[in-house]
């Protein structure tokens, strides 16, 4: 079925549905988060009460943004900072639903290859430049300009150009219908930037960003971190922030970041791995701290390289899958802070197949030994596991090593920095690899499992699987797509292409004086919806 044949309404529904996330599915919020739940409702757009802004939220993060020029970065810490400074055409609420940002409405046309936005009138950038259709089209042109070599341009998908039709109407022309359109369009990467400011600051724009978001950049220095101040004119877009300012400091060292929180230098820690897992237990006992958690749309798996012996033999892969006790791994490597993964699609992503839980090769060392003997490895074998140097991954690798030793497999661990790891494993220079991804849609199967996928580390040769993966991309009917996705997941699990390990949780910690802190599906807090008790 062709996407061009869909009615614009159906396509809109499909592309928005595509993004829907069932993040609160299984465990929901725990402890402190539950207490905040009721209050958090107040923070949702359109519902916030008019209040005088006050207070500064001081946040500690493990990384510093590289640049705040949306066309020069793909770093997530930059992205979440940019989401506060720039106003994308549409945003997502805590459940991942799309709602109006800069645009008040949109519609698909031209066989779903054109997406036309009606912008909210009277919006200006922080420097006073009108944030109109002209500015949106200018931004897109800058983003797509090959001379700028933007690493984030892929977020726009097959976008050809944007055309300003009148002051408040802008049309995005795609070369083909693009279902995951909202994955990128709701992020700061694709939000309009002030043309005046970008032209005036040139190379330095990433340090002096000007957008139309709820906060404007007040200062950014290596010594004092990043300070964002409330944009009082944000009313033309959505409810202005209740905080006077947000300050981001970065502490690469976990112990130092925690110390800064415990001594009251900062009020919140969030983003990526900023809350160290081994500190969660201690933080939960801290009466001044509220620990928020939410399942991440992320998973980690042991991926076998089928291009190499012995993993070209399905029995060996199944034996390995049987030899690993994931529950014990979660207890030891993550202090219990994760859920057992059963499928290549994380359970927080729509499209996850619960049936995979029954298909999995559960912990059974005897079965593992038997399968290995059948495959001719009764006297044991030796394989390499290539991992990157993230502490959690390293610990996971050590546990895999210990557990496989019990069935007579000797695992040599090679720990590499991320760039090297990425280069080597993409060439297949490993027997096994611990693969990680973070994504919002079941289409993740394409990059990680299709034989031409950019992150395919299993190196299998399976035309049937490739065909299924290609088919789910263009299947419009959600139920139909689910059937295909179920098939993909069942195949990968029963043939043991992957041994899914665990799905991490996202954590944030805030001091008790912070109000309305709630994690979104990406594991981020939204300072624009938060407040500080005065």
């Amino acid at each position, binding site marked *: 079925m062709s996407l061009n044949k869909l009615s614009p309404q159906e396509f809109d529904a499909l592309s928005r549905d595509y993004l829907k996330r069932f993040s609160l599915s299984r465990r929901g919020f725990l402890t402190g988060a539950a207490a905040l739940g009721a209050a958090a409702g107040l923070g949702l757009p359109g519902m916030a009460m008019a209040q005088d802004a006050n207070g500064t939220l001081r946040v500690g993060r493990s990384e510093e943004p590289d640049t705040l020029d949306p066309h020069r970065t793909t770093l997530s810490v930059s992205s979440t900072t940019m989401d506060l400074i720039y106003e994308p055409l549409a945003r997502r609420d805590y459940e991942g639903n799309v709602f109006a940002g800069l645009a008040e409405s949109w519609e698909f046309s031209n066989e779903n290859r054109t997406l036309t936005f009606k912008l909210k009138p009277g919006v200006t950038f922080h420097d006073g430049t009108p944030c109109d259709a002209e500015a949106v089209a200018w931004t897109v042109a800058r983003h797509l300009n090959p001379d700028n070599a933007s690493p984030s341009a892929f977020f726009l998908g097959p976008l050809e150009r944007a055309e300003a039709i009148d002051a408040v109407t802008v049309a995005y022309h795609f070369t083909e219908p693009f279902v995951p359109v909202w994955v990128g369009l709701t992020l700061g990467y694709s939000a309009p930037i002030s043309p005046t400011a970008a032209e005036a600051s040139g190379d330095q724009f990433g340090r002096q960003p000007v957008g139309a978001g709820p906060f404007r950049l007040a200062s950014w220095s290596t010594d*004092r971190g990043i300070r964002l101040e409330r944009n009082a004119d944000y009313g033309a877009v959505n409810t202005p922030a209740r905080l006077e300012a947000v300050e981001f400091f970065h502490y*690469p060292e976990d112990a130092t970041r925690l110390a800064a929180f415990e001594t009251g230098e900062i009020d919140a820690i969030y983003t990526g791995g900023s809350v160290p897992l081994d500190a969660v237990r201690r933080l939960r006992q801290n009466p001044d701290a509220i620990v928020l958690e939410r399942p991440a749309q992320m998973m980690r798996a042991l991926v076998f390289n089928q291009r190499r012996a012995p993993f070209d033999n399905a029995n060996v892969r199944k034996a390995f899958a049987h030899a690993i006790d994931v529950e014990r791994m979660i207890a030891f490597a993550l202090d219990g802070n994760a859920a057992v993964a059963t499928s290549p699609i994380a359970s927080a992503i729509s499209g996850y197949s619960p049936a995979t839980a029954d298909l999995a090769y559960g912990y059974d060392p005897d079965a593992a030994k038997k399968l290995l003997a059948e495959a001719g490895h009764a006297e044991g074998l030796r394989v390499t596991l290539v991992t990157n140097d993230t502490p959690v991954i390293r610990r996971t690798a050590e546990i895999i090593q210990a557990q496989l030793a019990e069935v007579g497999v000797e695992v040599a661990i090679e720990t590499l920095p*991320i760039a090297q790891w*990425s280069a080597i494993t993409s060439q297949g220079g490993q027997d096994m690899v611990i693969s990680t991804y973070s994504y919002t849609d079941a289409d993740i199967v394409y990059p990680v499992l299709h034989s031409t996928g950019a992150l395919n580390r299993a190196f299998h040769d399976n035309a049937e699987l490739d065909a299924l993966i290609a088919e789910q991309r263009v299947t419009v009917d959600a139920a139909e797509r689910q059937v295909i996705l179920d098939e993909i997941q069942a195949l990968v699990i029963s043939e043991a292409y992957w041994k899914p390990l665990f799905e991490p949780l996202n954590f944030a910690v805030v001091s008790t004086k912070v109000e309305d802190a709630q994690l979104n599906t990406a594991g981020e807090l939204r300072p624009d919806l938060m407040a500080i008790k005065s």
Partner: protein
Amino acid sequence: MLRLIASRLLYAVLILLGVILVVSSLVKLVPGDPVDVLAAGNPGMSVANMDALRETMGLTRSVPEQFIAYLGGAIQGDLGTSIRQGAPVTTLIMERLPATAELAFWALLLALVVAVPLGVITALKRNSWVDYLGTFIAVLGVSTPGFLLAVLMILWFSIELRWIPASGYRGSAFMALGQAIVERDFSIFWSSFRYFILPAISLAFVLIAVNARLIRSAMLEVLEQDYINFAAAKGVPRFIIVVRHALRNALLPVVTMAGLQMGSLLSGTVVIETVFAWPGIGRLAVDAIHVRDYPVIQAVVIVSALLFITLNLLVDGLYRIIDPRVRDE
């Protein structure tokens, strides 16, 4: 003298060229480039996207080509543009260098202020309990990793006692000192200086140990010289003998050591800067290595080499001034 300076400068240029060549080839011999880092975190990026990016970033050019292009820029003072931040590398380094330089200064100052008296006293009280205590501290200092001490101090002084902040950098203490004097308000200086205390101690600890031992042995050697006995026989007060006759000569090797120590402190105290969230060039280098930001890595190494070479030249010059024997050679 002029010939000496000229030959030294030529030597420095050759060393720099060698450093650039070694670094730029080594960095590229290691698998993985900036695009690999981007792709590892972005499943939405396709193989075609990655190839296109490599092309536009100039990563597909051969190593010699890149080296020559880089050298051409470097001669004109252009060390390239950071791949990750898009800003000129020289700007990034100049932003970070003052924080490192000032921390290095305070650490070295502290190290010398403690090490010199400690070295002298342990030499004078040789084989007494004071000497043993000094030796104990020195061994402890040399064998305690700086980061361990750093974390212990954070736990004790910041979290337990809440005396001094655990980390961060709030501007230059020199500038604050100036402002404090003008406004007659000492708290201005303190508000910025207190951030220096823990990292400076962490860095100084090992230097104290090394320098104190060095001064101790130099003092012991000097104190056995005939001219010391002669001065004592002449009735020169003990204090004058120790400070003017002995210490002055014993400090000579310390000048060399301090020069080299300053060099290594300046070229980035990587671990300590990471622990204390210190925005210096050591951390700049670590961050750049993580994301394979080649121009930044190369520039930090070149600047470090430059600092070392300059300090070496300065030490040599200083030696000629304070030690007449070197001048004669």
